[in-house]
């Protein structure tokens, strides 16, 4: 089957930003499209924009040039989609936020965690007698590196926001 072959091809990573009508069901249209056509989603984030009638969705996906072309065409075909851009086609900034809760039962481990957070420019946002919670923003690989840096400190919980992105320069995704 051609589609299975398509889905197996890893291909390049793309960040697609979508402006869509802020209506019930809009998210399920996008999610449904990806599952029905066998496209993969690495992450998906969505929130209203400064114009409350519009949502902005960021989808990170992988595929050959042909598949990415189909994905953008099929997304554009959704009646709720107002506009979209493949951010990876030009210079862009991507950010993801991580919150990580680690066990800090000794003063040594508290010191170590504080040092690590400083090195990565993270912020400690919650403290208890036995745990620290750190917030860190950056590209995905920076967050990965931060998580991997906790060799000795037990990780209690992590949560990542998924990728958001914006193009560099004055170019913008707006209506």
């Amino acid at each position, binding site marked *: 089957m051609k589609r299975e072959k398509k889905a197996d091809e890893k291909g390049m990573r793309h960040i697609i930003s979508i402006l869509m009508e802020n209506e019930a069901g809009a998210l399920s249209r996008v999610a*449904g499209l990806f599952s029905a056509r066998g496209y993969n989603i690495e992450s998906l984030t969505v929130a209203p924009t400064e114009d409350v009638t519009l949502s902005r969705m960021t989808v990170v996906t992988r595929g050959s040039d042909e598949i990415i072309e189909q994905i953008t065409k099929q997304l554009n075909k959704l009646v709720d989609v107002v506009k979209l851009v493949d951010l990876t086609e030009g210079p862009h900034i991507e950010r993801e936020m991580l919150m990580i809760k680690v066990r800090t039962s000794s003063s040594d481990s508290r010191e170590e965690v504080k040092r690590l957070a400083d090195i990565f420019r993270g912020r400690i946002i919650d403290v208890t007698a036995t745990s620290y919670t750190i917030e860190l923003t950056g590209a995905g690989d920076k967050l990965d590196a931060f998580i991997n840096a906790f060799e000795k400190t037990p990780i209690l919980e992590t949560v990542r926001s998924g990728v958001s992105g914006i193009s560099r320069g004055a170019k913008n995704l707006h209506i």
Partner: protein
Amino acid sequence: MKLTGADILTHFLADEGVEFLFGYPGGAVLHIYDAIDRQEHIKHILVRHEQAATHAADGYARSTGKPGVVLVTSGPGATNAVTGIATAYMDSIPMVVITGQVPTNLIGNDAFQEVDAVGITRPCVKHNFLVKDVRDLTSTLKKAFYVATTGRPGPVVVDIPKDVTADSADYVYPKEITMRSYNPVVKGHGGQIKKAVKLMAAAKRPMFYTGGGVILDNAHKELAQLAKKLNAPVTNTSMGLGGFPASDKLFVGMLGMHGTYEANMAISNCDLMIAIGARFDDRVTGNIEKFAPQAKIIHVDIDPASISKNVKVNVPIVGSVSDVIKSLLREIKASDFKPNKTAMKEWWQQINEWRAVDCLSYKTDGDKIKPQFALEMLYNITKGDAYVTSDVGQHQMWAAQYYRFDKPRRWINSGGLGTMGFGLPAAMGVQLAFPDATVACVTGEGSIQMNIQELSSCMQHNLPIKIVCLNNGFLGMVRQWQEFFYDERYSHSYMDSLPDFVKLAEAYGHVGIQVTKPEDVEAAMKEAFKLKNRLVFLDILTDPEENVYPMVPAGAGLDEMILI
């Protein structure tokens, strides 16, 4: 003017110019049915199963070009409609389906006859809406018709909870609507048009491959002009039949799995393919690696997502088919376009050699009725001018091969989804739209039983459809594949215990005629078509072992056909 939601709906449909509403009542739509009873503009056509309502609306839409409109209740009403919605979606047919829904305060409560109609239909509609407030009803309905009928057409579902049909709001018919998120492209890109004409001028073996888009956009006249300018052969997909006259000498027949030898060979050998309103479906291309290996491809389509989906093309042109063909004709006129006469002579010589194979000839057998013969007879007796709806299977392919359509919108079949049970209800929609026209439903004993209950609707609404049932006692297409590819193990393809179709037709109040001998086919058909005001069920017992040829086996290239 303040109206209830139910009255807003009927007023809106009347203002939108809707003639027929195909439907079936139920709890969630009772207010709407009460409103229907209060008005005289729209005629409601009561069916016997919601699937038939959608197919009838579909047949109406395919034959008239106007959107078909359906009204069903919540829950099972909506789920029964899904097959018809998916059928229309695959073939890009404009349709608006109103589904009733449980009251807003019960949504999500697993209420009686509740399903998430918007969720269930989402993958098989162009778009759908849930109306939660009566004040949004009019604009939502307008959007639904606008989306269904523009761009690449398709079905749109509007789910209306019962309380919304009881609440009141002001009603003013909106003449126009704009949607910032939906603006289909009409005009083709000028630069692409120029590139396309350059390729046409350089071509030695050009070929048109056209589909349902030509019919949907009423572009048959423009297509004929363009084909004549190039003097190039034209092949149609099953959805595209009638988009170019079958009796024209440029026509080489249908292409694909059961296409003609000349069409499939021409595709395999052309050096330029001009694809118009077609989508390179797998039943058309066969093995995609072997499809039109020597051709540069120009692809005209209103849907950008159809372009370079299955086959990479050289010159994509996004736009309405009729508009783009007009631009191509203008550009041809403006440039010093001359077809290569010597090359074209050689190309036609080659095509005529393929034609001489006469791939649609079939062996006659004294005492068995050949299905091909029955369809040739249908063509002759209706003078090639009937509306022909079909179900799905062997009879569908034979009808496509042997009923030579000269006009668009005459061949009504479920091409994309391949929905058995489509033919009879679709014929109802056609006959309602054209009460005086000859409407034939070509079917088989398998397909007809999937919506046989509509014989009752045909009686109620006085629809004199002629059912041509090619009864071979087998699910023929399944049987054919089992013969070719499963060592003749006919697993569950034999329909034992068939009803007496003559008596069945009579039980519903119609006329039934059974034909068992080849020499009786003509007289029986003549008799049937003479009965202008009656539905006639022609039960024609055909050769059970006949196969559809040519056939491109799955995985083979178009030039690797099995001929008889």
